[in-house]
């Protein structure tokens, strides 16, 4: 019999780089827990390595990155590659917040983050129910990997 913790999908969450703005990530953490996820909230100022290590140790199913200070593109460069290198290429990668401080259109912003390896990219003002619905869909669709 799998235990309750083993059945729950595990989400690692935090604000990346030097971003100390924690409110958005914390609200999302509450909402995810209420929706039945096992949430590992790493808090503010989380480096790429900390996300990778946390995901590895907890066998995370997805990583939700928050970035509110406009440096998201810079902070996320090479992140997906590190996950792949750590054997975590299968982990779903989401990001949301105020993603760029430049005048990029939303379409261009989304395109750039997808190019960096993110599966889902959310614009400012996104409510938690949207990523929650996406997580449920994406993680249900994930097949095959026995390891947890």
């Amino acid at each position: 019999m799998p235990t309750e913790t083993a059945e729950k999908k595990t989400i690692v969450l935090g604000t990346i780089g030097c971003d100390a703005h924690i409110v958005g990530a914390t609200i999302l953490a509450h909402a995810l827990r209420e929706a039945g996820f096992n949430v590992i909230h790493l808090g503010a100022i989380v480096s790429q390595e900390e996300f990778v290590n946390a995901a590895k140790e907890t066998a995370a199913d997805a990583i939700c990155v928050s970035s509110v200070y406009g440096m998201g593109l810079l902070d996320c460069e090479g992140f997906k590659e590190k996950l792949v290198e750590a054997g975590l290429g299968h982990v779903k990668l989401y990001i949301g917040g105020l993603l760029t401080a430049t005048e990029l259109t939303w379409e261009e912003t989304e395109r750039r983050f997808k190019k960096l390896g993110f599966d889902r990219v959310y614009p400012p003002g996104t409510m938690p129910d949207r990523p929650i619905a996406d997580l449920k869909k994406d993680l249900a669709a994930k097949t095959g990997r026995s390891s947890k």
Partner: protein
Amino acid sequence: MDDIVLLVDFGSTYTKVIAVDLDKEEVLSRAQSPSTVQDNMLIGLQNALKKLTMRERQIDDATIKRSRKLACSSAAGGLRLIAIGLVPELTLEAARRAALGAGAKLVGSYAHELNDDDIHKIEQVPCDIVLLSGGTDGGNKDVIRHNARVLATSGLNVPFVVAGNRVVNGEVKRLLESNGKYVEVTENVLPELDKLNVEPARSCIREIFMRRIVHAKGLDKAQEYIGEIIMPTPMATLKAAQLLADGSGSEPGLGELMVVEVGGATTNIHSVAKGYSGACAVVKGLPEPYAKRTVEGDLGIRYNAATIVNIVGEQRVSCNIPGKLDCASLDLVGFTSYLSKNVGFVPANEQDFLIDLGLARCAVEVAVERHAGIVKEMWTPHEVVNVQYGKDLTQLRTLVGTGGIFAYNPRSEKVLEAALFDASKPFSLKPKSPDLYIDRRYILYGMGLLSALDPVIALRLAKKYLVKMQPSHCLNQGTGSQPT
């Protein structure tokens, strides 16, 4: 009739005994004799016991026989442990902290999947116990499973403590046991990423030490005479530190504190403190254990005297030698390499004492720097944010020194001062202005032992015999750490 308790430490070099009168709450005497590891530990113990005195007379055999006895041991290499985890900074670090807190000596640390080379190395290193962790509860299962499988088929024949992802506890135990290994399963050292849980693993390691390892080290005969050897020696010092900080029953402690222990082979730092940030910082990294012990295996004033010079440089050792010694004419490299080969060296003149002080100061400076947390400034587009890693010990009110140098060197408060906050390294969170205490009678570890019998008296004795240094002594005349 006097109620005397004998506190014994079977060390690898010396067997030490402290005689305590519980009724009068006093330390009667302290004696030591070379350990007889090769033959029978009992001989060394009896030699030491003969040297015990009470009111200037030898304590007679009948009294010794009647006295209650408590013992700890670090003989035959101490409690040598290999820690295995998944991510170096997470479960491996948690396992290492559990091991050090149990008084173990880490002889190997391995992260991720063990390969053939790792197993080969593990088989070669003399080791008493393996602590196997990996994965938070409900987290990664593959790695600990893999490691159990390869360890099971290895030639290693020591007890295993399994303290990993509880989801695979049963499987890991079966894997190891199917190949005849002895296994104890306990709670995960890191059940959740933000929850360090080292106590269950610590007590499990201690249990195995008492029930199995003591026998394997030829201490049986001594144990028949003395009763159970209840803990590894380093754990006794950590217990004393905790007792001294927290108090016991109605007897108040001294509050959060740090104990600095300088030895011939290692320098050990114990902090009993939450280490919360005083600087309004974002705190990162693995949660810190309240009672934390770190062991610096490269810093010791005999075996590792030459290593200290290698690490900090000749110049800095010279600068840390207090007083007016003519350092230019000193051959520090030659002398320390002599010390490393003659570990029983006892300082005979002023110069020897001063060099010991210089070496110990450097060892303490580096060891406390490694133990204490750091704060880093991070520049964000909006503001500077302080990020803290590890414990903030700047506000500690009490700093204690223990170990041979504090007992024998008349100016050993100089060594303690090296543990203080250094204005030239403001990001290292060392204690800023604590009261300084010295364990002049070298009894602190004994009080950790005695706490198993009577914590209140143990605490009163520790407080009674620690010597408080006057503030005038706190002025740092060397270079380096300057209290602010």
